[in-house]
């Protein structure tokens, strides 16, 4: 039975990596887990989603302004990118970079488009990780 669960976990992890959702940093975090701290990665990810929800909301609100405050948007995205990077969220990291590029060129539409994509990835990763952590 346990072998099956192990396999399931292994497959899930592999697909997360193959599909580019996660990168090496996630593995680094897993290596920080031990018997005394067996849920470290889950704790960090939970903290990430809780903390970044606020940022996502701020960005959403700021994108509704007219004209757009690109400096503010860039600042929020810099923070969001940082945390995403820290948990190994590869796709999200790339979306953040794209968003910041649009900020630099003052491309409001580009920002909005990228942000929609980013929100999708953000939600998708959350689901996948929730599933991943559920396997004992």
């Amino acid at each position, binding site marked *: 039975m346990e072998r099956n669960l192990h396999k399931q976990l292994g497959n899930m992890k592999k697909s997360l990596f193959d599909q580019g959702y996660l990168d090496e*940093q996630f593995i*680094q*975090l897993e*290596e*920080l887990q*031990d018997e005394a*701290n067996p849920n*470290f990665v889950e*704790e*960090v990810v939970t*903290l*990430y989603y809780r*903390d970044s929800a606020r940022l996502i909301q701020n960005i959403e609100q700021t994108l509704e302004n007219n004209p757009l405050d690109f400096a503010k948007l860039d600042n929020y995205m*810099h*923070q969001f*990118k*940082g*945390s995403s*990077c*820290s*948990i*190994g969220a590869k796709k999200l990291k790339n979306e953040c970079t794209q968003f910041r590029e649009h900020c630099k060129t003052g491309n409001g539409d580009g920002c909005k488009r990228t942000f929609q994509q980013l929100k999708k990835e953000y939600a998708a990763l959350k689901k996948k990780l929730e599933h991943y952590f559920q396997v004992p």
Partner: protein
Amino acid sequence: MGSDCSSIGAEELHVLAVDDSLVDRKVIERLLKISSCKVTAVESGRMALQYLGLDGEKSSVGFDELKVNLIMTDYSMPGMTGYELLKKIKSSSKLRQIPVVIMSSENILARIDRCLEEGAEDFLVKPVKLSDVKRLRDVILRGDENDEKKGSQKRKLNDLLPTSSLACDLTSLKSASAASQQARLKRPRL
């Protein structure tokens, strides 16, 4: 181990980590704890200075008890940047000897140069790895060990003077030449 009470006991560094990101603070804390370091994590440069006793307010605990062996700070923080924190620490006679490491998600050469010029011990690109922390720890511990050795060597030399042969020779040479000079001056010119 030396009996000097300021030496690091049992290879345990006390690290002050400064980062405005909650997630990054959690990660750096774990990295440091795994590397057998004591950690105090704060969210801003101002809080770091307060903790170090450099923010006007006198901390209730004596400085030695809070003794920080290493400061690791994020570069981009609202209010006071890591660079500004670095400058403040390096311009304090009380704190300048504490090594400061800057962490940044942005690998900008000019930024790195600026920080190193200002006296940063190292510049780490985020995300910080366990190998980075372990390497730092070893460097700091070795550095402290070297300071210990230098300190004790100095003490030994002071104890040995004037019986240490080299010092003796120099002293005698010095006094000999001074004496001969004086003698020349004193001899009346006939």
